[in-house]
């Protein structure tokens, strides 16, 4: 198998590419349902789904957001698509602030920012053909042309773009006649009908069969390269983020805890949570290592990963994220963190920049920390 030229678009470094969509200090709180106990309460409790998230989606770049269920990663996608109103913060599309949740301005925003959902079985209407779904998208975004021939041409082009060929075979079929992978391709084609700048993909492959997941990821990568799209890839699978994304951000309990180049974040995780996540992911190579087969020299990063996993092994509650109604003070990871210090309980860690564009929101990396871990192999 050929190795991918690494990074895929080596000409322009990721940090110099144009920012298409930017989120500044994004927060979203959901009010807890009114019940007898808090009926009279003036400050009704809220779920802190997303707090202070900063995110930049760049042209021709895939940015992955990795986290467990309940970490707020899907909320981020919905906030960026303006499906939820923001509690705090700002969205900037091509440098201009946007705040329109309805009407013409919202439709103009949708034309630029399209979304793909997790479940291709639920996102297509079972009573309509593929032709209907795509025609509707083309018409709403005024790309259907003037004549029937134009429309037909546009439909065929769309299906060709997502490798559903010959298009005639799929245009008049109903969603139930297609497999999961084909349905997801139709959903992608529908998003592409708007000719967007940004694609928000919320777990686009997690409902699909294993053997066809890569086909969809490779298709998205291909679209990104040909059309210079900015893609947000939401996933719980950190290995697929390494495979597919240029940049990876790790979320825990509604906050970003680490970010940087995908390769750096997965090979040299800095935040204890990322280390735990990577140590817990199934990895057949581990078997090879245990069997004594050569699998690369052990690194300090690998030791840290192993340590993080062992530390949580026998703790009853260790595998569980905290309640977001009353999130832990200070760093939200501190109740589970094997390296928690006094400071972690009280003070919220800011971002600390690490070499190579990586950053982590962890007090271990503060300038005045007593034992600042040295990340091996870091570029000076």
């Amino acid at each position, binding site marked *: *198998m*050929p*190795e*991918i030229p*690494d990074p895929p678009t080596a000409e322009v470094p990721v940090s110099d590419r144009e920012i298409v969509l930017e989120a500044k200090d994004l927060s979203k709180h959901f009010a807890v349902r009114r019940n007898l106990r808090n009926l009279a309460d003036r400050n009704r409790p809220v779920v802190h789904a997303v707090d202070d998230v900063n995110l930049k989606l760049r042209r021709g770049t895939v940015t992955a957001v990795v986290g*467990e*269920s309940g970490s707020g990663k899907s909320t981020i996608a919905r906030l960026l698509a303006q499906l939820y109103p923001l509690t705090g913060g700002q969205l900037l599309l091509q440098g201009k602030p946007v705040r329109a949740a309805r009407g013409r301005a919202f439709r103009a925003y949708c034309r630029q920012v399209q979304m793909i959902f997790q479940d291709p079985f639920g996102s297509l209407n079972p009573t309509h053909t593929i032709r209907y779904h795509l025609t509707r998208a083309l018409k709403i975004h005024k790309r259907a042309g003037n004549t029937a021939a134009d429309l037909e041409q546009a439909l065929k082009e769309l299906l060709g773009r997502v490798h559903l060929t010959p298009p005639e075979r799929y245009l008049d079929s109903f969603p139930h006649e297609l*497999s*999961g*992978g*084909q349905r997801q391709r139709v959903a992608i084609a529908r998003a592409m009908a708007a000719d967007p700048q940004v694609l928000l993909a919320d777990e686009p492959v997690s409902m699909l*069969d*294993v*053997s*066809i*997941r*890569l*086909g969809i990821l*490779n298709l998205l990568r291909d679209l990104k390269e040909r059309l210079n799209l900015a893609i947000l890839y939401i996933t*719980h699978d*950190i*290995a*697929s983020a*390494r*495979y*597919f994304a240029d940049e990876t951000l790790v979320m825990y309990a509604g906050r970003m805890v680490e970010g940087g180049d995908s*390769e750096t974040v*997965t*090979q040299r995780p800095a935040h204890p949570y990322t280390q*735990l*996540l*990577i*140590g*817990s*992911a*199934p*990895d*057949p*190579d*581990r*078997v*090879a290592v245990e*069997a004594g087969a050569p*699998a*690369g020299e052990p690194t300090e990063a690998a030791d840290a990963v192993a340590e993080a*996993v062992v530390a*949580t*092994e*026998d703790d*009853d509650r*260790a*595998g*569980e994220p905290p309640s977001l109604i009353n999130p832990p003070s200070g760093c939200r990871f501190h109740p589970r963190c094997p390296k928690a210090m006094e400071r972690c309980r009280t003070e919220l860690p800011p971002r600390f920049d690490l070499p190579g564009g990586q950053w982590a929101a962890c007090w271990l990396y503060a300038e005045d920390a007593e034992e600042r871990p040295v990340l091996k192999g870091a570029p000076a």
Partner: protein
Amino acid sequence: MTTPAVLDIRGLNVDYGLGSKAVHAVRDVNLTLHRGEVLGLAGESGSGKSTLAYAVTRLLSPPGVITGGEVIYHPRKGEPIDILDLGSEQLRAFRWQEISLVFQGAMNSLNPVHTVRSQLTDVLKAHRADMPRAARDARAAELLSLVGISRDRLGSYPHQLSGGMRQRVMIAMALALDPDIVILDEPTTALDVVMQRQILRQLTRLRAQLDFSVVFITHDISLLIEFSDRIAIMYGGRIVEEAGSKEIYETSNHPYSHGLLHSFPALHGPRRELTGIPGSPPDLTAMPSGCAFHPRCPRKFEPCDQRVPVLAPPTPGSDRSVACWLHAEH
């Protein structure tokens, strides 16, 4: 494979529906589970892996029909039993006592209006009618601590527990009667990776401690390679390859196993371009002729679309087997 067999599946066939409209979900499956081993059963949706588990425990509900074959259970002492021949009373005594099952989405199979205690003791009440109440309660508490949940959770209702804890309660329930075989059907699919690893480690420890055999069903083959001793890969209702998990990881013989193994991006090592497998899994109502995998297979040749390959060792005397014309002796 020195340990004796505890479960022997011979020529098992399962259909959904009857007559010409029947869909063959499991065909000619031969599989042996040895005492104390973890057997992984991998396959995509529709490959028949869950149907196989339901057939073995006789839990198939209509229109599912077992149309042939036998499932022989070898108890520690006593005569082998064909599970498919048991009457309903015998079956009731047999289930859970000898084979227990943890279902897919097990977290939601707890009854929301009963406490953990009453659900755990219910199993004991049904099977050990003469057990005094205090002994039942003590056993329930013991079971909970076995899976790493503190005893004071006995009085909790399912909604008071997290997903991972509910899953562990289900595992505790499956172990209540010291069964010989535990079948886990996608036990951790709904959980996060951190919790998944914790539960699987706990299972590995319990297995060593209590000495039961496990059939572990999942679509995640990279998980199986870490946690099982042997892996059988199913495709279109048949087993296409069976081998030790390390062997299958190092050299997979069937093109489908190879494709499946190369569908998971690696966390370490060089970044490679992966392709997955072209096409989509077969439709059980319209199965391709010959080898079910041939329309997607990159290495198909003359006999593949006509004759069904049999599951056999690739070289005589080998302890692995594969159903592929590439490895058949002509």
